Every structure is written in C-alpha cells, then in structure tokens.
C-alpha cells in the first residue's frame, strides 16, 4: 500500500489540494507571506482584532464557491481550503499595502482601523451575496445570525470574568485578543451545538427546555438525552481549551509579543472561522 495525500485527507480534499488553481493561489499566498515577513510588521493586539472581518470572509466565500457557478478555472481558489487561502492572501496584501502607505509618516494608529474597515467591506458583500444567492434572506435566519454572536459574547464575558479572577495577569495582558479567543470558541461551540440540535427538527430553545424538563422531572440529570449532553459538553470543552490556550500562551506572548499575538490570533481564528461556518451552514443549509 502506498501512502499518498489522499490517505491523510481523503480523496476529494486531496484532489482539490492538488488542483492547479489551488496550487497557484497557495504559491502566491506563500510568496505574500514571505514579503510581509520581510517587512517585520508589528503585530499588536489591535492588529489581531482587526482581522475579525477577514475571518468571516473565509467560510462565507467557501460556502458561496460551493453553491454557485464559479468558472472551473478559479473554482479551486474559492471552494474548500482554497477559499481560506484566497482570503488570507487578500488580508496579507491589504496589510502590506497599508504598511507601505504608513511608511514615512508618524507611527500610525490607523492601520488596524483601515485593515478592519476593508475586511468589513469584503465580508458585507460576500455574506450578503451568499444569503441572496441561496435564498436564505429570511427574518428567522437574520435573527440567528444576530443572536448567536450576542449569546457568544455573553458566554465569553462570563468566562473572561472567571479567567480574570483566577489568572488576572493572563486576562490583563492578552486583553481584547484573549477576549477574542474565548469569544471565537464560544461562537463556534454555540453555533455547532445549535446547528446539531436544530437539525433534529425542533428549535434549539424548545428542545433544550423540553429535554431539561423531561430529564429533571422524570429521570434526573443522568436521564439527559445524549444530544443535549453532547451540546453542553462541547460548549464547555471548547471554552476550557480556549482559556487554557490563553493561560499557556501568556508567558510566551510577554517574551515574544509579535509571535505570541500571532499564535493567539491563530487560536482565535480557528474559533471564529468555525463559528461563522456553523452559523452560515445552519442558515443556508448543509
């Protein structure tokens, strides 16, 4: 038996990873990374937070690419992993251009604002097009898209409060980046849990209340349905892992702020991208 790429990632993903279009965009992204690295840009907490809109673009573009008729030649760049690489490339190029524009002027506090503003513009168009093209622009869907981040922010607030009580230094030093890490994973956990419960055919709230009443009233906590236990377990495990990442990376970030904030940004991106993906899949359909 020979070991190939398909052994590890499956034949479909392997085919998309080896497509010429994907290889081209991945190559350009690698070059862009090197050029950006050569600039030694300062990675501050604000820069990491300004990447949030770009984290929304990736999953939205991946879903849009999979559901609409992009030409075959550019399809690998806007579907699956290719969509994320394309988004990463756009963010890198924007960052690079802004660095060049800021050169020679006073230390600019505006860079994160412009990086975020441009990402927000791209995200607005891509998410809007996805909702319109898939016919998912209903008030119920808009409600879920609005309420899930608010719920995630509330959960993240509680977790950050607890983190601040036990690991004050970690919470204080990582600041908004730490908050983004917890928020991202709260969003991912809530999005996934809601999507799983919702696909069972009930609204999440009604199912949760029904299950809770049945379990407490009839069989106690042990009688909680597996699905609900899984959903809650999933939410808390993700939050625990996010908190652990903040605590473990604080010392490293203090020694190497650039690399530390980049790592924390990556951890946050995993959460935000996963959360946005789950929410959008729930809204536009699996």
């Amino acid at each position, binding site marked *: 038996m020979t070991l190939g790429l398909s052994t590890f990632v499956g034949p479909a993903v392997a085919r998309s990873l080896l497509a010429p279009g994907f290889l081209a965009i991945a190559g350009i992204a690698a070059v862009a990374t090197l050029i950006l690295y050569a600039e030694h840009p300062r990675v501050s907490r604000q820069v990491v937070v300004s990447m949030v809109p770009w984290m929304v673009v990736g999953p939205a573009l991946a879903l849009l690419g999979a559901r609409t008729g992009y030409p075959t030649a550019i399809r690998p760049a806007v579907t699956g992993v290719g969509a994320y690489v*394309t988004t990463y490339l756009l963010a890198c190029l924007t960052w690079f251009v802004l660095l060049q524009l800021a050169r020679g002027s006073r230390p600019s506090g505006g860079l994160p*604002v412009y990086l975020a503003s441009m990402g927000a513009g*791209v995200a607005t168009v891509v998410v809007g097009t996805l909702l*319109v093209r898939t016919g998912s622009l209903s008030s119920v869907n*808009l409600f879920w898209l609005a309420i899930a981040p608010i719920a995630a922010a509330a959960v993240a607030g509680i977790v950050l409060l607890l983190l601040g009580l036990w690991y004050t230094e970690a919470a204080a030093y990582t600041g908004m980046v730490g908050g983004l890490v917890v928020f991202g994973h709260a969003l991912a956990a809530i999005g996934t849990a809601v999507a799983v419960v919702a696909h069972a055919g009930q609204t999440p709230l009604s199912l949760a209340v029904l299950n809770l009443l049945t379990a407490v009233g009839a069989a106690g906590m042990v009688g909680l349905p597996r699905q609900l236990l899984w959903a809650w377990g999933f939410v808390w495990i993700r939050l625990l892992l996010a908190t652990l990442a903040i605590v473990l990376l604080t010392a490293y970030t203090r020694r190497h702020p650039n690399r530390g904030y980049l790592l924390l940004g990556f951890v946050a991106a995993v959460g935000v991208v996963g959360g946005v993906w789950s929410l959008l899949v729930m809204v536009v359909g699996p």
Partner: protein
Amino acid sequence: MPRATTAGGSSAFGPKSVAAFVLGIGVGLVLVAPALPSTVGPALADVVDSGGSVILVGVVALTVLMVLLAVLYQGYLRT
C-alpha cells in the same frame, strides 16, 4: 451634533476608514462577480414578494446593530 469620537479624540469614522470600507466592497464585488450573473435581481424580487417588509425590519435592525458594534470596534482599534 457631536461626532462619535474615540478616547484619543479622533473621529471613529474618518474619511480614510470609510474609503477603506468602500474599497473593501469593491474587492468583495470582484470576488463574488463570477457568482452573480443575472441572478441577484430575480432573487431580490423573490425576497420582496415573500414578506419583504418583515425582512426589511430585520435587515434594518441588523444594520443598526452592526453600526453600533462598528463604533465600539473602531474606538478600540484606535486606542
């Protein structure tokens, strides 16, 4: 009328950040252009036909929420 300002006193929505947003919309349009051909019009018409006013309220509410978030967000990014 007082303008939304940050802790540093600068405007939260300066012309440059608005320009960056508009530029982002342009880049986004380029990105989604191949997925658009002659489908957005009919799709929007369908949306309006099937309870468009309710959706409009949702869109307006979501937009207000996003603007509020944007003011807070930009305020933080400028600190």
